[in-house]
């Protein structure tokens, strides 16, 4: 018998199973009305290091708490992809805590009406004052929350106003198409301000110490138990007002560091979902019965090879183009990605769509590469280190070896350097001093201009290759806040893509997938841009 069945049976109060006195006190503490529901077990390789997404040092794996335990004003809808799997829908912003909203004609005043009957876990009604306090916190704490708020043009507490208990107003400095979607990201969560203020101190006015361990939200799940480094247990909030009732009464998220162990667990049917599995496993497990695999291309994320323009040979555009023609793309896609994902090479010459990402016009063509290189000062090639982060080794290592071979054929001699995690951030993204390196970036807000803002504007974090072009800067600046139906939008984006392919500082390899393996008795899984497990839509099959 599978453990899940056993748990399910136990929850249903089956007496055939002799449960000893020591059986999970969690079960004993369950409310009676939950007797027909079930428990799901999710495993993943990361670690949850905080329950507060706003705190500095909170890692990506912890963002799931913000999603599952807190409400935002709005959320994204759901769409069905071609393969039948579910994905969030960027083009469809839906109500969550706010039941409706109005945006003034000039686009600068957003007025939200909060849902009636929405309460925090402690029973206190959710008011616009809580929203105001939470938003003030996000723009004041600095670090990631403040930067992400800034993307939606939310920068200072003066912009937020609690008109009355149920009306919340945001004033923007100028209209932006990014404002509304930014409210659906995991950052602008609504926190129980009364609880938080009680725990705040002079040194810690935003109660980061308290909320780090004790979430105080109105979301679909509460945290029943958090054993740092081991597991997180979510318990359904039976009074959740902001969406459909979740399918599971309890979800246990377990940290299992070894990939092989996670695979054994899902194959044996001991767990319901294994989050973020490697491409190799995705390919192999998909062929087995008893396990479902869902692979979703990660929106606007591209695994790339980047050529740093501060490094002399790469200042010559023809050298960068020669590199782009000397990469054995197909072999890399097969050996590093196990053919999971979307190829980002071999596209048409010229740009005829504003879809992003889209394949670059480059392909494996040594003749063209040699020809281009021979026109430059580096016809005999040069030496350059090729770097990647150790935490990307699963795809970057095989890719780097093949790139090394390809570049070797046109005389560019590379030495491979693997750089550990903390160091990578510093030298690749902050100091931007790696001449040739493998990078990935996917923006949370799914518009091409947002991607170009982070990756093609000089000084911005993901422009790890020091690309700076005045025309590009002007285009991005003009386009970033512009509505997508503006007549200038499509031509601007087309021009950005043309320049990106012509100047090719970032050479696209492929668009990766987020792979999730699950047992056939769980359904409802939805892909989200934040790549964390949203446990709310999961339900027993």
């Amino acid at each position, binding site marked *: 018998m599978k453990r899940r069945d*056993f748990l399910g049976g136990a929850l249903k109060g089956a007496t055939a199973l002799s449960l000893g006195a020591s059986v999970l006190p969690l079960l004993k503490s369950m409310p009676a009305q939950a007797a027909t529901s079930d428990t799901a077990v999710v495993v993943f390789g990361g670690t949850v290091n905080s329950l507060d997404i706003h705190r500095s040092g909170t890692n990506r794996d912890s963002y799931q708490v913000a999603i599952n335990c807190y409400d935002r004003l709005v959320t994204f809808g759901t769409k069905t992809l071609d393969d039948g799997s579910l994905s969030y829908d960027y083009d469809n912003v839906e109500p969550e805590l706010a039941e409706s909203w109005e945006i003034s004609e000039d686009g600068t005043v957003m007025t939200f009406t909060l849902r009636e009957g929405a309460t925090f876990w402690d029973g206190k009604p959710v008011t616009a004052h809580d929203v105001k306090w939470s938003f003030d916190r996000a723009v004041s704490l*600095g670090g990631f929350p403040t930067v992400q708020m800034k993307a939606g043009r939310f920068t200072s507490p003066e912009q937020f106003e609690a008109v009355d208990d149920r009306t919340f107003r945001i004033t923007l400095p100028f209209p932006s198409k990014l404002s509304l979607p930014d409210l659906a990201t995991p950052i602008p969560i609504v926190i129980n301000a009364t609880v938080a203020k009680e725990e705040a101190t002079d040194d810690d006015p935003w109660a980061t110490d308290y909320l780090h361990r004790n979430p105080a939200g109105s979301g679909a799940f509460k945290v029943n138990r958090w054993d740092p480094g081991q597991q997180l247990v979510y318990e359904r909030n039976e009074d959740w007002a902001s969406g459909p009732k979740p399918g599971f009464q309890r979800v246990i998220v377990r940290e299992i560091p070894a990939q092989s*162990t996670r695979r054994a*667990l899902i194959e044996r049917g001991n767990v319901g979902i294994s989050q973020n599995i490697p491409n190799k496993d995705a390919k192999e497990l998909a062929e087995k019965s008893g396990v479902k695999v869902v692979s979703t291309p990660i929106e606007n994320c591209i695994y790339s090879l980047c050529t740093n323009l501060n490094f002399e040979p790469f200042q010559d555009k023809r050298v960068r183009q020669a590199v782009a023609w000397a990469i054995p793309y197909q072999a890399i896609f097969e050996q590093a990605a196990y053919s999971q994902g979307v190829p980002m090479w071999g596209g048409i010459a010229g740009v005829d769509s504003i879809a992003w990402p889209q394949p670059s016009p480059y392909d494996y063509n040594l003749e063209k590469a040699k020809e281009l290189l021979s026109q430059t000062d580096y016809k005999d090639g040069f030496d350059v280190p090729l770097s990647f982060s150790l935490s990307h080794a699963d795809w970057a290592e095989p890719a780097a070896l093949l790139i090394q071979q390809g570049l070797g054929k046109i005389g560019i001699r590379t030495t491979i350097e693997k750089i550990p995690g*903390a160091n990578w951030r510093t030298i690749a*993204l902050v100091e931007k001093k790696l001449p040739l390196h493998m990078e990935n970036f996917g923006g949370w807000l799914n518009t091409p201009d947002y991607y170009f803002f982070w990756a093609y504007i000089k000084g911005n974090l993901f422009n790890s290759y020091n690309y700076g072009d005045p025309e590009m800067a002007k285009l991005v600046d003009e386009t970033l806040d512009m509505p997508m139906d503006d007549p200038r939008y499509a031509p601007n984006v087309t021009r950005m893509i043309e320049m990106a392919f012509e100047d090719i500082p970032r050479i696209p390899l492929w668009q990766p997938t987020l792979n999730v393996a699950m047992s056939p008795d769980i359904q409802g899984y939805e892909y989200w841009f934040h790549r964390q497990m949203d446990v709310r839509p999961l339900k027993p099959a």
Partner: protein
Amino acid sequence: MSLAIKSRRVGMRLLQAIPTIFGILVVCFLLTRALPGDPAAYFAGQMADAESIEAVRKNLGLDKPMPIQFVAYVGDLAQGELGTAISTGQSVTSELATRLPASLELTLGALLLAFVIAVPLGVMAATRPNSWIDHLCRFLVTAGVSLPIFFTGLALMYVFYYLLGWAPAPMGRLDLLYLPPDPVTGFYTIDALIAGDWEVFRAALAQLALPLITLTLFVLAPIARMTRAAMLQTLGSEFVRTARAAGLSGHRVLITYAFRNALLPVVTTLGMVFSFLLGANVLVEKVFAWPGIGSFAVEALVVSDYAAVQGFVLCMALLFVGLNLLIDVIYTLIDPRVGEES
């Protein structure tokens, strides 16, 4: 040796440990700072800009000059404060307090099991050279040394969990169905016994079995090998021959004369093996999702989490100083000559 002299000696040994520990503190502090990578950049998070990185740096106190950072660190330490591990968001003290018992339960368990198996095996192999038991000993030693520890772990898991389904799911110290017993020692098995909770005891033991066997196989080899060699040496020595010639019984010669003398190098080996084990633990902890100290330290090192790394090194240093002390004391008990000349 009177009790007073003994305790004075132990006291002296303890005092000698103080400069060692202080030295370790300084070296570790400097080494962590010399690690490549900027923790502020890492912990500022995904989208951090220069401004927020600076804010985090200030928050962590990393903007101050190193001597001031060191004084602050030692000051905190004097109050028993090890700082906060940013990588896990917990205080280092509480991290160590919950994780060290998990690692020690594995390590000490494996050490005990290996000792119980390897010492008789080595003794028997030495007394019956080239018999089947000697061959078995040789086989185990070769296997233990030549199989990488993560391989043994994965292989055992594959066979006993994946194929046969005898072992429970390798998901840490306790199955999902149970809650840990009230902490007394921090060892789940012992705490469950103290609480008289047989079911949790059985569950904890079941989770412990595979990682324990993996580690035992690893440390069995040096102990068995050392026992066998030491026994062979003492059995061939003059005092054993004299004892035999004097007509003492074989059993008495073996245990009182030969084994007691052979035990000294074995105890030394045990001390060394313990340190190997703590290192080997890291891999086993990863494979079996064991929430121990090894995986914590590696993770902390990767992200330049200063407080966590320093706390870990300090904890290990104390552990080894304690262990060396213990071994010295055991020496004096086994062999009264030790320390007499000093």
